[in-house]
């Protein structure tokens, strides 16, 4: 029977294969050795980037003493890891591991290898944030470091569990289909989105409530008896040196649940991509031929609706809109647009498949289709904000929103032109470094009109016309670039 160390070593081969596949289809280098090195380097940069982000959060939290800071930290860790692991599930297929079933390995060992391969995708961020948080907590308060450490492990376990259970149920039952299956899929998405985004909404909303109202902390303290029993409050109370019997009891129960969840996730991970049964009646095939741009829009919409990883990425700006609807429109637009750069990048990454290379597709068609989808997501996001504004009796600023739609259009076109010219077609999980590179021009395009408007506002002039003018110029420039492609 192979030892855990041996299984870990075997998982390294599958991880290597996964890394290579993430880049092989796009073949940015002709030299295969360079391609392999490039894939490994790119994955390492992604991991280091995420590790750095989580470590900064960990150090910041460790040196705070308020319960709410820890609550937000645990919720954010769960959300971020679940989000990135979810993106990684797109790389997994049962075929990747078929070879294992022909080797003298038990099902349990195969599950462990698959789980370890999955874990390896974000091993450095998870290990680094755990160590950094533990060390920082020991420096700040040795007594609180143990429960804080356990709280982090529990959060990480829940994130992995959440992705494995939900992916398994989704991919094996309702990944695609029409009619009744579509309704079930939507319902399933609602349930999943609720579980998935609740951590994000929770962390974001709590952060805002905490910042905007000191009274909220007193609410938490006055309800500590109940809250301290719940995850992640029990760990947050203990981490900030508030030791109550309920918090200890909560920690014990949630730790056991996290352990069981992780154990079950390990055994069920091989079923993430098991082939699903499908009852279909034979009907006369119907095809609706459309223009290439519409065909891309339909294809992308279908792919998004069948992939939780993509769907939640697209929903993220809308989710952010919900959270930011209490603030100002320009701030919300800037934050939503930052997410939209990520969406643009991921939609373009869908075309890394070889099929688009053998079809007569002009870059202009591809970029136009992706941009229309990005603008649609932007409009839905600001529509959500507007709706909440109106319900609260406030009047949204349609002029700013419409002007910024032009900038979002320009951002998407220019980011995609750069990506096409530099042959960057990557997944989010495997191309985080390239995303950061593309976010810079994208973000500048979004912020420039707002910055100009802000200057005019400070100077006491009319800021709406400069805002529109700047956005319109960006839009025209994007149109010109699109037409000379």
């Amino acid at each position: 029977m192979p030892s855990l160390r041996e299984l870990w070593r075997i998982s390294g081969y599958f991880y290597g294969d996964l890394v290579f596949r993430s880049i092989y289809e796009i073949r940015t280098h002709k030299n295969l050795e360079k391609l392999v090195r490039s894939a490994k380097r790119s994955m390492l940069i992604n991991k280091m980037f995420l590790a750095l982000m989580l470590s900064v959060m960990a150090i910041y939290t460790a040196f705070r003493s308020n319960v709410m800071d820890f609550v937000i930290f645990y919720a954010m860790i769960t959300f971020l890891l679940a989000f990135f692991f979810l993106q990684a599930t797109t790389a997994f297929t049962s075929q990747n591991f078929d070879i294992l079933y022909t080797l003298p390995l038990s099902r349990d060992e195969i599950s462990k290898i698959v789980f370890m391969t999955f874990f390896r995708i974000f091993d450095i961020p998870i290990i680094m944030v755990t160590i950094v948080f533990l060390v920082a907590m020991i420096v700040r308060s040795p007594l609180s470091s143990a429960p804080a450490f356990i709280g982090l492990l529990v959060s990480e376990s829940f994130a992995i569990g959440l992705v494995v259970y939900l992916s398994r149920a989704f991919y094996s039952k309702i990944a695609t289909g029409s009619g009744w299956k579509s309704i079930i899929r939507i319902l399933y998405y609602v349930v999943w989105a609720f579980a998935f985004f609740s951590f994000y909404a929770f962390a974001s909303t709590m952060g805002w409530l905490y910042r905007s109202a000191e009274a909220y902390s007193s609410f938490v303290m006055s309800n500590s008896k109940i809250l301290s029993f719940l995850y992640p409050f029990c760990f947050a109370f203990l981490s900030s040196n508030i030791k109550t019997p309920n918090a200890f009891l909560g920690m014990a129960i949630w730790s056991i649940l996290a352990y069981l969840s992780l154990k079950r996730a390990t055994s069920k991970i091989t079923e993430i991509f098991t082939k699903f049964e499908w009852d279909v009646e034979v009907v006369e095939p119907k095809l609706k031929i459309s223009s290439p741009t519409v065909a891309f829009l339909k294809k992308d919409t279908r792919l998004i609706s069948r992939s939780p990883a993509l769907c939640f990425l697209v929903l993220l700006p809308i989710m952010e809109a919900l959270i930011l609807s209490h603030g100002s429109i320009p701030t919300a637009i800037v934050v939503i647009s930052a997410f939209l750069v990520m969406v643009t990048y991921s939609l373009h990454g869908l075309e890394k498949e070889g099929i688009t290379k053998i079809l007569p597709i002009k870059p202009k068609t591809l970029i136009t289709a992706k941009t229309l989808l990005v603008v649609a997501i932007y409009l839905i996001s600001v529509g959500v904000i507007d709706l909440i504004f109106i319900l609260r009796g406030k009047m949204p600023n349609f002029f700013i929103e419409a002007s910024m739609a032009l900038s979002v259009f320009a951002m998407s076109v220019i980011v995609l032109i750069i990506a096409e010219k530099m042959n960057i077609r990557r997944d989010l999980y495997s191309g985080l470094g390239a995303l950061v590179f593309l976010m810079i021009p994208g973000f500048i395009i979004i912020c420039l009109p707002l910055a100009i408007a802000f200057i005019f506002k400070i100077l006491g002039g009319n800021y709406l016309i400069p805002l529109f003018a700047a956005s319109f110029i960006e839009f025209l420039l994007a149109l010109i670039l699109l037409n000379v492609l």
Partner: protein
Amino acid sequence: MSVLTVENLVVRYGDTVAVDHISFRVDEGEIFGLLGPNGAGKSSTIKAIVGLVDFEGKIEVLGKPVGIETKNLIGYVPEEFMLLESLTPLEFFEFVASVRRIGNVEKVKTLIRAFGIERFVNKPIATLSMGTKQKVSVISALIHDPPLLILDEPLNGLDARSSRILKELMQRHVEKGGAVLFSTHIMEIAESLCDRIAVINKGRIIAEGTIEELKELASVEGSLEDIFLKLTGQYEGIKEIVDAIS
């Protein structure tokens, strides 16, 4: 008239030369076979023609250099599937047909019936068997009625009926003035289908012509398999290897 012209084609992967200055031509009404051992450069040649890898040299389809314009002139069945697995075959055909701007969808329906995949057209491609996926791949290559068919191991996984249909379709295609570039490892099929054959080894064409011409060239009487093994220098030692293994 030449449908496909390849002149001095070179495909490199870094320092490795996968295809080394090869030239050939596929004419109207011709099935041209590309044979070679594993790693000889067949698939790299095909990938260069369809635009999947960069190359040096000249490739023309109906007198036009390869690029976006020639993509509608080619129907390509790759050795490895290039399908969008979460779509159903029907959605996939719809996407391909729309991008290729095909007005008449009757051809697609006819092909679906011909290859007997009516029961599977609304199932996700990811759930289909290898054979059914291959049928989806073949149909998507045929729906736009291209003058040049490039088929890389197209009979892999196909059942007997579908293999026969595809072979008949290839024959009909060339009878109507089309051309087929066909790569296979199955010598019997190449022998029965191809009008001319090029044998590639280590990135170079080492022989080209009709079966009769190749027999003459290799000084071998027998099947295409014998000629192929002789030409590629793989004939010697087969018996000894089998004896050693068994």
